[in-house]
């Protein structure tokens, strides 16, 4: 049987199937019933793992810490418990100093019913990501789930050593509906899904250097991508940050006047930029790797 779709799979399936067989050990699993203490205030159902699975396992026989968000529970949003599990895992990685962390993002951002706790969780997670990286630990992110990687999830992903994204993946701070609600449909039509994907989807992110690896929508492809980005993770030091500064400033210089992603792709040299969204995986990777100018994506 072919490898299951990453987009379709649950967080548990992704974790189980991307790690070596039977190697996953969960920390504070669902049987501990450490659920959100806040959802009942809103008469909302809890989930036993609060939508976040953390633990350790083996990838090609090598130990990794792994965290996965369930994008279908509360849109994968960060709540108090959900976030604290990841914080604790990252702090452990920092303390150990040698075991990489793989984060399977699938989130709409902060869980509004516990917004302050979620916002602070993200601040703590980002600090813990940086601490782990400063301790020499690769922290890598995989983005290709139903909920995308929005809000604080996008910021956390941006703090990682390296990212893999699939076509389905979206990385952004404000979601399409939020932009439309605040700025009007003229600014952004959230129902125009082609627009959503070419603005914040996986292909655009890969092309402009927002992600290091473009994965196919299968667990196997993400597993390969995870192995690759762990190997090639950038260290976090002053050089990296300065390189990232230059990279980001150059992006504004080069594409800051573009009205649409199609214009960006055209100015990158894509002969038929309109065809990129529909392009099959292999064709796109071949084309993109010819276009991408910043080979080493400093982040």
């Amino acid at each position, binding site marked *: *049987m072919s490898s*299951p*779709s990453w*987009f*379709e799979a649950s967080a548990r399936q992704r974790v189980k199937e991307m790690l070596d067989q039977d190697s996953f050990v969960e920390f504070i699993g669902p049987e501990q019933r450490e659920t959100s203490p806040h959802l009942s205030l809103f008469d909302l159902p809890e989930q036993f793992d609060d939508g976040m699975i953390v633990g350790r396992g083996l990838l090609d026989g090598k130990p990794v810490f792994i965290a996965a968000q369930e994008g279908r529970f509360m849109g994968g949003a960060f709540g108090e418990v959900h976030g604290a599990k990841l914080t604790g895992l990252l702090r452990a990685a920092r303390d150990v100093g040698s075991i990489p962390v793989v984060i399977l993002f699938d989130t709409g951002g902060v869980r509004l019913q516990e917004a302050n706790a979620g916002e602070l969780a993200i601040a703590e997670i980002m600090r813990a990501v940086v601490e782990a990286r400063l301790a020499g630990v690769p922290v890598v992110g995989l983005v290709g789930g139903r909920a995308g990687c929005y809000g604080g999830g996008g910021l956390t992903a941006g703090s990682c050593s390296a990212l893999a994204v699939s*076509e*389905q993946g979206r990385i952004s701070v404000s979601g399409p509906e939020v932009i439309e609600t605040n700025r009007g449909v003229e600014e952004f039509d959230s*129902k*125009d*899904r*082609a*627009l959503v*994907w070419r603005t914040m*989807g996986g*292909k655009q992110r890969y092309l402009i250097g927002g992600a290091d690896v473009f994965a196919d929508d299968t667990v196997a492809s993400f597993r390969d991508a995870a192995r690759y980005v762990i190997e090639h993770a950038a260290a976090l030091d002053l050089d990296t940050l300065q390189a990232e500064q230059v990279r980001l400033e150059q992006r504004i210089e080069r594409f800051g006047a573009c009205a649409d992603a199609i214009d960006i792709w055209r100015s990158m040299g894509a002969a038929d930029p309109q065809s990129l*969204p*529909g392009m*099959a995986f292999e064709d796109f990777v071949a084309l993109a790797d010819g276009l991408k100018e910043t080979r080493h994506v400093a982040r």
Partner: protein
Amino acid sequence: MTVWDSGRIARASRLQAGARYAKGKHVARKDATALLEAVIQPGDRVCIEGDNQKQADMLAAALAAADSGKLHDLHMVQSGVVLPEHLDIFERGIARRLDYAFSGPQSQRIARLLFGGKIELGAVHTYLELFARYFIDLTPQVALIAAVSADREGNLYTGPNTEDTPAIVEATAFKDGIVIAQVNEVVDKLPRIDIPSDWVNYVIESDKPFYVEPLFTRDPAAITETQILTAMLAIKGIYAPYGVQRLNHGIGFNTAAIELLLPTYGERLGLKGKVASYWALNPHPTLIPAIESGWVKQIHSFGSEVGMDDYIRARSDVYFTGPDGSLRSNRAFSQVAGLYACDMFIGSTLQIDLQGNSSTVTTDRVAGFGGAPNMGSDARGRRHPSEPWLRAGKEADPDSPALMRRGRKLVVQIGETFGDKNVPLFVEHLDAIELARKLDLDLAPVMVYGDDVTHIVTEEGIANLLLCRDNDEREQAIRGVAGYTAIGRARDAKMVQRLRERGVIRRPEDLGIDPLDADRRMLAASSIKDLVRWSGGLYAPPSRFRNW
């Protein structure tokens, strides 16, 4: 002295009134309302073309902008009440009486206007009935239609979404009526001529293409495990034993699941070539994997589907296409095909009662059924035999002599026992009855009558109503597949068990189906993108269905 050509005289004077806005047959968009005010007269029967797919939306808006002092008391005779403008004209008094067949998004507002007395309702028809009445007692005086393009002479290319146009124009143009077409563009040379220019009186170039709703696009990503289970039951418990070769599918997710299981589950059951070869069906994107896997021999379509045009063009062995290569749909002919040349209809509904009557009308929604009642009924005029038809007939009436026994069309209702928001599919009484009382109608809007229904498929199993010998059995057979709805829980367990032993009710385990095997991984495509891949990139889904 008797005048025998008053209609022709009236038409001449209408044309004269409209002539000042026209250059030849061509009228500017800005004069559309003025033209309508000139050629339509108060009390006229008017048809605005529009069904569950295509809409003559510019002309609908032009009519809605008319002066209600000049145009009033119109009698609208049209397939669809779908656009807000279709009801605005009633609110503004431009129109008063309505005969129609389908209303999707406006079903709630139409109910309010009916209750408020703003609409005088003739009847809710099926498409085919309404077309029929165009030729008998509801012939339009003016038809407002939509086409893709016109040439200078006024010939029309209606293209893949030809749909209702031929039926409307035939009835109007040949009975002294006026035909006004909105077109997306005027060109020198048409790809093909669907409507000849001498049946068309005016052509108006619209500022944007006429609207088409992608009504038949079902995203495989939304198909549930339960729907897959019902699809497996239908394939193994109905398609296979009856050997159904000629059929029509509804638009729900259960039948979309069936389409996506043919190349996987159907293949495993060895059914390829034995079932589901000939279709009366719109170009469902979810049928692409089955077509690509060689299951489908031929499809005739009521209309087209947004994004399917290139795929259809490249699969002319399967679809009906013109010399230009594009699809030719025709709702009237396809409805006739579904009625007389198909051995099965399978589709979903919102409510089923204890007699098996079903309806999608609820007390605050007057939906109209479009084509479903024709598809979902036994054609009493049918005379040609086929194996499924004869077999169904025999099950219903085992004792009559074979040579004198009518066959039966398989009419299958498929669904989950609970629908959206936990609303039960099975009810004691249809809401349609309550609605008919409130509106003082002569007839409750029933979509499929119980005596036409042969099977009901739910996740709990299949009820074969052909094998029921009396009303009691029929009721218990229905209760026996009604799951945990109040209807289902009130079953006579012993009788249901006896029905099961007789094969009237068949549970998944009776068919060798393990509900736990109903997995999304069985679907030949699990996303719209998968469908695009199956089509070799020929299917171009509308933006709202994309996630790339």
